[in-house]
């Protein structure tokens, strides 16, 4: 409870948005149906993006939730991104006027063809959306049988796996153990910080999928670990040579001047934004009582939010990078150079 803070909790007061993505046929609708049937997912509004003249999947979901918005006839990451923004705005207004139930979270199911990055950026682009929503997490589903082949041949499938906070292997009952093991290894190589789970008939614990991100400014260490995953304990991620995905965590012992940090990020995004698949972490900024939460996808970063206090004794800045071909040393050197100059 924000007692006598005099200000508001910028994380707690925003509606969490979960993105469920995954290649065609990976079982997104099945998982979504199973999730919505659970009490933990009550009061969820759903946006479904379907590609094609006639939407089908939303009919399957509508049976269990009345708050469904369908974005069809295009892919949400490209031609329909404006529609997604509009849908999120409309949903909030409909909620406010009572035309829509008082939903407590939004789940967006993308088409299998969607590049998740533009979708993740959507709520950063429009200030009014950023006021009302926060990206809670990206859930990427990978077909237990077809997944390895899709990752080998399709760059979007790789990107979907690389930027995920959670990876869910589906259709495990149709795959043999050796195939699943191999897929698991490949996913860990692409994205060593995401937690991975295996779903059976779309069933997975809601807690694994929801409440992934930081949901309040007063947090425990456990929340940071849940959000940043293995990055907390891992200095170097393995390099996924097959797809040129590089994952690493940078730690900084000294607090940043705000200007130094902002300039380093600006330089990085201006030179290699397209290859900066995802950045997230906590940053110690001079004169701030708590860490500043950083979240970025390619060229765009969410408006930073300062937490009420550091969750543990370790006040070092930590930044997780998932890149396409940008090495750890390159980014570390950039930060070092700018800090030295500033």
């Amino acid at each position, binding site marked *: *409870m*924000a*007692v*006598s*803070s*005099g*200000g*508001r*909790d910028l994380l*707690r*007061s925003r509606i969490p948005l979960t993105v469920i993505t995954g290649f065609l046929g990976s079982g997104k609708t099945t998982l979504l149906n199973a999730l919505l049937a659970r009490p933990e997912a009550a009061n969820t509004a759903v946006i479904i993006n379907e590609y094609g003249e006639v*939407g089908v999947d939303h009919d399957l979901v*509508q049976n269990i939730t*009345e*708050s*469904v*918005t*369908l*974005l*069809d*006839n*295009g892919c949400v990451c490209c031609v*329909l991104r*404006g*529609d997604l923004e*509009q*849908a999120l705005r*409309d*949903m909030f*207004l*409909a*909620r*406010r*006027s*009572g*035309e*829509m*139930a*008082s939903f407590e979270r939004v789940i967006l199911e993308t088409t299998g063809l969607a590049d998740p990055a533009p979708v993740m950026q959507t709520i950063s682009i429009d200030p009014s959306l950023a*006021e009302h929503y926060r990206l809670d997490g990206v859930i990427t589903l990978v077909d237990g049988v077809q997944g390895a082949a899709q990752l080998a041949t399709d760059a979007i499938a790789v990107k979907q796996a690389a930027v995920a906070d959670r990876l869910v292997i589906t259709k495990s009952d149709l795959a043999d153990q050796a195939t699943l093991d191999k897929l698991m290894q490949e996913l860990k190589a692409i994205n060593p910080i995401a937690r991975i789970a295996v779903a059976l008939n779309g069933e997975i614990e809601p807690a694994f999928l929801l409440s992934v991100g930081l949901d309040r400014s007063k947090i425990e260490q456990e929340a940071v670990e849940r959000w940043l995953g293995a990055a907390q304990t891992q200095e170097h991620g393995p390099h996924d040579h097959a797809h040129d995905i590089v994952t690493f965590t940078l730690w900084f012992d000294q607090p940043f001047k705000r200007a130094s940090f902002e300039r380093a990020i600006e330089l990085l995004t201006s030179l290699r934004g397209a290859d900066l698949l995802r950045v997230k972490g906590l940053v110690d900024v001079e004169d701030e009582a708590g860490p500043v939460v950083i979240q970025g996808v390619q060229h765009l970063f969410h408006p930073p939010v300062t937490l009420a206090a550091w969750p543990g004794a370790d006040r070092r800045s930590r930044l997780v990078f998932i890149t396409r071909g940008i090495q750890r040393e390159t980014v570390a050197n950039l930060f070092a150079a700018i800090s030295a100059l500033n």
Partner: protein
Amino acid sequence: MNAKTNLARGASPADTLIWNFKHLGQHELNGFGGLGEGINLQLAPDGRRILWVAHESAPKNFTGIDVGDPRNMKVVVQTELPHKDVRSNSLDVVGNTLCVAYQTTNVGMKPAGIELYDISVPEKPKLISHFDRSGPYSRGVHALWFVDGEYVHMSSGAADFQPRDARDDQCYMIVDVRNPSKPVEAGRWWAPGTREGDADPSPRRIEGGCEVGVNGFRAHNTNVFPERPDRAYVGYLDYGALILDISDKSAPKVISRWTNCPPNTGFTHTALPLFSRGLMLVTDETIHDNAIDWPKLVWVLDIRVESSPLCIGTLPMPPFDTFAKRGGRFGAHNLHENHPTPTAWRSDNIVIGSFFNGGVRAYDLSNPYQPQEIAYFVPGAPKMSRAGAIQFNDVFVDDRGVVFAIDRFAGGVYALEMNF
């Protein structure tokens, strides 16, 4: 756009609309859940948290509720009024002293004035004194402000206060209660020209086709804070909002006046300064059903130069189409007033208000030029409510951050947690 929505659910008064508040509990006060605009919290000598609320109308006077557990509130005492033509409406608490306002239906009736009670034992409020403000032209006291244990600031009539127009019967009055057994009037102020014998002409007029003064030129909320003990921030219905110099309580002087009437329909209710921001919020009160007196707003004023208040905006209101015909009144009324007492929550950045059927709403004033709505709670219609919709009359936030909102007709007290 291609987006298709399936949002068939209608905005029924039975629906609860909620965002960033968590509903913890409700108490209908044993069937007497119609409450006025007096609400404050006592930390009793035995450690209990007692919320005191004034009733909208007879037969009940005031009720004390143990709100230590907001999920399980318990009535500890509920008192009666002597007859149906008096209402208490307003109260405040300082330590273990409760001050209650009494206003009668017609002039010349009793009891009209204020009473002080010792509430050290909440179950047994003990009358300390009755300060009579009845008279041939007086209905007594409508609203009061009592936060320092020394002075009561109130909107009141008096035996010697004869208004030129009966609608102007309550002036701003200061009562010295340093000896609670013997309250004495310390001073008063009224809009020039409203009292019989005034040299000034009556402020009643027609301007731009609008009749000014229809609702009366009367004091409503009369707030004084320790940050500026020499200032009173007063809502004076159709006369607007006033900042008064009360360094000499016997002779308050106007520093500035701001009004939106005309072109709006007046009924200025509250003037709430946010000292660290150089801001003042001014509320209207809507007094008609179905929003026929719309718009009734909360205005944001820049008072860095107190002699020259500048309106810089209004709080964004709930959608008119949704609420205007939802039932009962829709529009601004009371705010949580940052009571300078240990049991109240205080913020100069966040403001929480009651908007009748528009529910309880919270706003972030970090950017005063662009206030943002950050939370709302509009419960479904209370059982037996004659308005057919919630009618939140007042709101108070305690030092734990628990929000208490009270319904005008039937719903009693709602306890909320702030999720922002």
